C-alpha cells in the first residue's frame, strides 16, 4: 500500500537540525564564505572599538593619505591612511559598529513596520488598506532630504537620528511589496482552505502568507542593507549624515571622495567593505531562501556526497 522509502526516522532533535543546516551551508561554498565574512564583521562590530578605538581616531598628519600595501608605518597601515593620517584598516574595523548598528536598525525597523502595515493593507483590502497606502504615498513623496534636514535640525545629529531618517524613508518599499504579494497569495486555494478551516486572519497571515512573502522580503532587505549604508553615505556627502568624530563606512567613503584623484584608497576600502558585506548578506539570503523552500531545497541536498 505504501511506498517503501527508507525510514526517515523520528523527529530530529534540535542539535541534529543544527548540524543539518550547517551541512547544507557547507554545501554552498559561497554562502559558507559569506557567513565567515559576516562573522568577521560582527566580531569587528562588537569588539572593534574596544580593540582599536584609539588607533582609529589618532591623527597623524605625517602619514596623511599614506598609500596602501606599504609596511613602513606598521601593519595597521596596510590599507593606507586617510586624509588625517588615521589608519584606514583600524577605522574600517571600528566603524563596523556604527555602520552595522545604523544599517541593521534602519533595515529591521523599516522591515518590521513596513511589512506589518503591508500585511494589513493586503489582507484587509478595505478602508484600512486605503488609509495605509495613502500614508505610504505621503511617505514616498516626502523628500527624504528635507526629512534628514528636519531631523538633524530639530534633534541632534547622531547615529540614532540618522537611523530614524533612513528607517522612515524605507518603510514604503516593504509595505508595498508585502501588500502586492499578499494580494496574490490570499487568492490561492490553500489560503482559502485555511479560511474554511476557521483560521483567524492573523493565523492565515502568519502561517500561510508570511512564509510565502518572506523570501521576497528577505531579498529586498539584504539589498536594502547596502542601500541604507549608501544612503547614509550620500547624506554625509550632502552634509546631512552622521557627524564627526562619529563615523561609519559610508561617511568614510563620502569623506574620501574628495581625494579620488590623488588618494583613491581613502574612499575605496570602506566602499569595498560595504560591497562585501552587502554581497555576503545576499549570498546568505539566497541560501536561506533555497534552504527554507521545500520545493527548492534539493538544490542544496543533492550536492551531498552521501547521496552520490
Amino acid at each position, binding site marked *: 500500500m505504501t*511506498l517503501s522509502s527508507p525510514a*526517515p526516522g523520528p523527529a530530529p532533535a534540535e542539535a541534529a537540525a543544527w548540524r543539518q543546516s550547517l551541512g547544507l551551508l557547507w554545501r554552498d561554498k559561497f554562502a559558507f564564505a559569506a557567513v565567515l565574512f559576516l562573522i568577521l564583521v560582527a566580531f569587528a562590530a562588537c569588539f572593534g572599538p574596544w580593540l582599536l578605538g584609539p588607533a582609529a581616531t589618532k591623527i597623524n598628519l605625517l602619514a596623511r593619505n599614506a598609500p596602501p600595501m606599504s609596511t613602513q608605518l606598521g601593519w595597521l597601515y596596510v590599507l593606507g591612511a586617510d586624509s588625517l593620517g588615521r589608519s584606514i584598516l583600524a577605522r574600517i574595523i571600528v566603524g563596523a559598529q556604527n555602520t552595522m548598528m545604523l544599517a541593521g536598525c534602519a533595515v529591521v525597523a523599516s522591515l518590521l513596520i513596513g511589512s506589518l502595515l503591508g500585511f494589513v493593507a493586503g489582507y484587509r483590502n478595505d478602508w484600512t488598506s486605503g488609509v495605509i497606502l495613502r500614508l505610504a504615498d505621503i511617505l514616498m513623496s516626502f523628500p527624504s532630504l528635507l526629512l534628514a534636514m528636519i531631523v538633524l535640525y530639530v534633534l541632534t545629529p547622531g547615529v540614532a537620528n540618522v537611523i530614524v531618517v533612513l528607517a522612515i524613508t524605507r518603510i514604503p518599499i516593504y509595505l508595498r511589496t508585502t501588500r502586492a504579494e499578499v494580494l496574490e497569495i490570499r487568492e490561492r486555494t490553500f489560503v*482559502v482552505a485555511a479560511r474554511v478551516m476557521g483560521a483567524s486572519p492573523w493565523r492565515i497571515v502568519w502561517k500561510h502568507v508570511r512564509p510565502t512573502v518572506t523570501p521576497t522580503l528577505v531579498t529586498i532587505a539584504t539589498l536594502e542593507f547596502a542601500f541604507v549604508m549608501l544612503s547614509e553615505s550620500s547624506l554625509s556627502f550632502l552634509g546631512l549624515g552622521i557627524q564627526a568624530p562619529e563615523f561609519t563606512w559610508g561617511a568614510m567613503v563620502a569623506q574620501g571622495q574628495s581625494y579620488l584623484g590623488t588618494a583613491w584608497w581613502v574612499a575605496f576600502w570602506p566602499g569595498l567593505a560595504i560591497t562585501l558585506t552587502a554581497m555576503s548578506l545576499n549570498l546568505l539570503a539566497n541560501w536561506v531562501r533555497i534552504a527554507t523552500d521545500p520545493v527548492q531545497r*534539493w538544490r542544496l541536498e*543533492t550536492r551531498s556526497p552521501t547521496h552520490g
Partner: protein
Amino acid sequence: MVEVRNLSVEFHTKGGVVPAVRDVSWHIDRGETLAILGESGSGKSVSSSALMGLIDIPPGRITSGEVLYRGEDLLKATAERQREINGSRIAMVFQDTLAALNPVYPIGWQVAETFRSHGVARASANAKALELLERVGLPNAAARFDDFPHQFSGGQRQRIMIAMAIALNPDLLIADEPTTALDVTVQARILGLLKDLQRERGMGLLMITHDLGIVAGMADRVAIMNGGRIVETGTVREVFETPKHPYTRSLLDAIPGRHGFPEVAPSAGGEEPLLRVEALSKEYASTSGLFRKARAPVLALDRVSFTLGRGETLGIVGESGSGKSTLVRTLVGLEEATGGEATYRGGSLLRAKEATRQIQMVFQDPTASLNPRMSVQEIISEPWAIHRDVVPRENWRERVGDLLVQVGLSREHAARFPHQFSGGQRQRIAIARALALKPEIIICDEAVSSLDVSVQAQVIALLKSLKDEFGLSYLFIAHDLPVVRSFADRVLVMHKGVIVEQGTTRQIFTDPQHAYTRELLGSDPLLGASAAA
C-alpha cells in the same frame, strides 16, 4: 512507435532516496491504447513525465532505461529536439488542472500557444484554438476565450487541458487522469473524441486512469503498476478476466456500484435538518478588466434549495460546470451568494462572521489547496492549532500518523512536503485534514475521483465508518456514479445551475425522472454495461 525500456526513476528527499519508478517497460503502437492502472502513487505520472523530459533533474534521477520514439532515444535527445517533439509529436494532459494552467493568461491564449510554439501564425492559431475548445465541449467557447483559468470549473479546465494536448494531432497522447473531473456525459464525448483521433490519425494513447470502466471501454492493452513496478500486463480481456497478480485482483474486487443500495437513513425524517438551503443563487459578474472586454454574467446557481439531515450523505451529481463547486463554495463563504439563504442549525451561514468548524471541505484541486511550504505533519495538524481544544499538542504527531494510515498513507509521510506526492496522495492528505476536526458536515468536492479504486474503496469505507460512529453528514460531489450509488443516501442532480431532480439514491438510479438524469445514467460505461448485461 514508442517504447519504454527498463525505466527507473528515483527522487532525493531529506528522508532518503524514493524510488518512484522501477524497471518499467511498455510500448505503444500506432492507433493503440495502453491503459496504465494502478494504485495512487505507484509511479504512473512520473514514468510518463520522464518520457517528455519533465522530471526535474535533480532532485529526480533517471537511473536506467531508455525511451524510444521511432527509434530515437528521447532520454538522450537535446533540449531543443525534446522541445520539438513535446506538444507536437507527444502531448500530455496533466492531472491537476488548476495548478497546471498559467493563472495569469487567458485560456484561449494558452491553447493557441501550442500552435504558435510549433510555427503556426497568431491569427490562425487563435481560430484553431477556438475550434478546438468547441470541439471538447467547452460551453460558450467564443465568449469565454479570454477568461482566466480560475474562472472555470474543474471539468472545464480539464477540457481546456485536453484541447491543448490534442491541438497538433500528436502521435502519442499521454492522458493522466483526463476525465476525473468530468461528468459521464461529457466524459463519453471526450472519450469519443479521442477514439476518433486515434482512428483518423493513428494516434497512440497512453491512458492513466483509475476508472476500470474507461479501461474496459477504451483500452487495447493494460499495464498494472504497483510500488513503482509493472506487475502485470496484457490485453484488457486477459487481465480483467484472469487477473494473475493479487493486486490486480483486489483492484477488480473493489469496483464500486456492484453492491446494493444503502439503506436510507431513517433519521432524515422528523428532526430538523442540519443544513437548509433555500433559493440560493450565484451570479458571476462580468469581470470587465481595464482592457478586458466585458461578457455576459454567468448564472452559476439558480435558486437552489435542499436540506441535509444529520448523519445523511447527500450526493451531488451533474454536468461539469453546472455549479456544484460554486454551490459548496458559497456554503462555506468563499463566494458571496447573490440571492437566497443557507442555514446551519438554524443560524445563517451566509452572514456568519466566521466559518464554523463543524463544516469542513475537501477541495477539487489537491495541489493548490495544500500550502507547499508546510510539511504534511503541519498541514494535517493545522486545524488543531486553530481549534485548540480538539487534540492536545503532545498527541498531534500520533494522531497525524493515525489519520495518514486511515487514508491509506504511511506515518513516515508526515515529514514530507506536498510536491513530493502524487496527485492521489495529495488528495488523501486533504481528506485527512478535513477529518482531523471531526466536524458534523464534510463537503467533498470530487474528493475521491483521483484515487484508484482500492484506495477509493478504503476511503469511502472510512467515511462510512465515521458516519456511523459520529453521525457525520456529507455533501458528496462526484462524477463517478457508481461511487455515488454506493455511498450516498440521497442524490441531487444539477444541470446548468438548477437542481433538476432530487431523491433517494434508489429512486434516482432506478427511476430517473428528468431527461438529463436519464442521459447521465445511460452514458456511464460501467452502469451502462451492467444495465445492458
